[in-house]
């Protein structure tokens, strides 16, 4: 790994330097005139862009990419994020010029190939989740959650049941769940989980009532264990007139094995960038397709892909008058959806089940080996799902070594840190998710690193407190970073 920090591209800038071969052709005065931009809105000076040679630009961005800690270079066991490998074949086929050149406003008659891929993707997602219908338009996980809760609200409103504005979430929920409920105009009721990580059914029974719009659950939960009482949860919530929302963040663990639709869920979002192996991007582009039970189908966001004797076509507001509407320009991120489609076609039904099996096997293997190495498990009586939690509370007390210190030290071993301090229910926790794509040798290498770090925690805790040593930067001042945002290279005059 390159150990030198790369300076901002603005610092390479010299007036007048550039790469003429890369410049777009200057628009003619005639073209500018036709665009009819009002005179007052036209800029008088060139924008403050860096002026560098082509080689300087190439070196700058290549160096930045080399500083990047990525799944293509390093083990990345970031719990709850499912940083699985993205097979290059998915990329190769999604980059076919016929897909890349397709304009989203092209008539359906000339886009039948793309539309049939999307139609099959809708069908495959329905099949693997056990839902009645799917919409591909949400562009990220939280966007899919928003669609799901908006549909639940629309469903209650359509029945004239206007009092239902409470969403129940377990204490271990992803932060996006209460945020989604709030965005949809609901209030949030939090319920506890018991010592083994299952939802507290007594608390749930007390929490539901005529104001309950629904419950948002992840299964397996963020505690890395399967919610065993899910059928009772569904009975209680449905019995009170509410609906069940499945946060698909942890779908990888049960892929091809158990279906949210069969557990009683009414709405689900699927993070195609997690479970179906599309790139996570730096915050995008993602894809958060939503699936629903039959009673929510009329409310799905449009457009959808439908079929008739003429072939495939877009279904819009005319076909779905009760739809919650459009959540993205056109239908989500077409390139990301294609990658998910190709991934699912490559796996097939049997391959899909192996994803769940190997993701779970790898997590349980790591859990057992780290327990034997002396790490404390947060839920020692439970089998791991696709991820599991270690607690460093003992090390924090005895050696003043925290989960963050261990996470930072792992970077020196060439391993991305697991998720730290989530869920907050577990003190000093590391949430570890190896995914199905890692070999036995990689997992053993991780265990060796963790064994060496635990030995260091006992013999030389100060060494951990100052880690990492081999990264371009050491410990960042995250308090100052959160309180004093500086988002410009230097103040604009």
């Amino acid at each position, binding site marked *: 790994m390159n150990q030198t920090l790369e300076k901002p591209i603005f610092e390479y800038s010299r007036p007048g330097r550039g790469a003429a071969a890369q410049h777009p052709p200057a628009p003619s005065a005639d073209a500018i005139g036709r665009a009819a931009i009002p005179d007052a809105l036209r800029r008088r000076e060139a924008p403050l862009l860096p002026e560098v040679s082509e080689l300087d630009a190439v070196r700058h961005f290549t160096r930045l990419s080399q500083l990047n800690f990525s799944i293509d270079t390093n083990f990345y066991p970031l719990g709850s994020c499912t940083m699985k490998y993205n097979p290059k074949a998915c990329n190769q086929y999604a980059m076919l010029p016929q897909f890349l050149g397709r304009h989203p406003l092209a008539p359906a008659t000339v886009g039948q190939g793309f539309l049939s891929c999307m139609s099959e993707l809708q069908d495959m997602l329905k099949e693997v989740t056990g839902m009645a219908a799917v919409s591909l338009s949400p562009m990220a996980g939280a966007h899919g959650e928003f669609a799901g809760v908006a549909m639940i609200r629309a469903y209650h409103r359509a029945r004239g049941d206007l009092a239902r504005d409470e969403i129940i979430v377990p204490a271990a929920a992803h932060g996006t769940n209460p945020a989604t409920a709030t965005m949809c105009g609901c209030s949030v009721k939090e319920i506890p989980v018991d010592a083994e990580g299952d939802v507290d059914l007594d608390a749930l029974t007390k929490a539901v009532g005529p104001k309950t719009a629904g419950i948002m659950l992840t299964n397996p939960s963020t505690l890395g264990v399967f919610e065993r009482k899910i059928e009772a949860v569904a009975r209680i919530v449905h019995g009170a007139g509410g609906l069940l929302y499945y946060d698909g963040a942890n779908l990888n663990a049960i892929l091809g094995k158990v279906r949210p639709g069969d557990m009683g869920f009414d709405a689900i979002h699927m993070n195609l960038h997690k479970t179906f192996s599309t790139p996570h991007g730096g915050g995008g582009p993602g894809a958060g397709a939503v699936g629903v039970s039959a009673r929510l189908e009329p409310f799905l966001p449009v457009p959808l892909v439908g079929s008739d004797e003429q072939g495939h076509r877009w279904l819009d507001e005319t076909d779905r008058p009760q739809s919650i509407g459009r959540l993205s320009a056109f239908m989500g991120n077409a390139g990301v959806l294609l990658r998910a489609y190709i991934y699912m076609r490559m796996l097939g039904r049997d391959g899909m089940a192996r994803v769940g099996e190997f993701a779970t096997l790898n997590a349980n293997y790591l859990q057992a080996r780290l327990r034997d190495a002396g790490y404390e498990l947060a839920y020692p009586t439970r089998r791991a799902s696709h991820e599991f939690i270690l607690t460093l*509370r003992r090390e924090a007390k005895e050696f003043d070594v925290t989960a963050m210190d261990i996470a930072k030290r792992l970077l020196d071993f060439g391993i991305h840190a697991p998720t*730290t*301090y989530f869920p*907050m229910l577990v*003190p000093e926790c590391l949430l570890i998710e190896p995914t199905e794509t890692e070999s036995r040798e990689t997992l053993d290498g991780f265990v060796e690193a963790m064994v060496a770090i635990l030995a260091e925690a006992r013999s030389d805790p100060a060494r951990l407190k100052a880690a990492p040593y081999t990264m371009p930067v050491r410990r960042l001042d995250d308090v100052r970073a959160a309180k004093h945002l500086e988002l410009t290279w230097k103040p604009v005059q």
Partner: protein
Amino acid sequence: MSQVPVELRYAKTHEWARLLPDGSVEVGITEHAQAALGDLVFVEVPETGRVLAAGEGCAVVESVKAASDVYSPIAGTVIAVNLALAAAPELVNQDCYGRGWMLRLQPASPAALAGLLDAEAYGGQLAATGG
């Protein structure tokens, strides 16, 4: 073991309540809570005049690790809030039982504190959960 002053009352969710001489009740988060959260970077306090039920979310604390709700340990009306926390959220880390107080409530019932944990019971809860 974190510091748990004997003169205060506690909620299971790690808030403390102090009965003031004028009958109002001061509220903040405990030493255990601030230590678990780590360095705070933002505190949101409620508006004065707001009526709170016991257990209702009344403030938000955001640290470098997480954002969490603070729940009102008792029912009452907000009569004062600690505005200093807007510029200096670190007061909660430095002095959670003193300058890091969050709000003062006029309790809905004079016996409001009776339902809360005393220092011994709260300390017992922390010990049981490894805090």
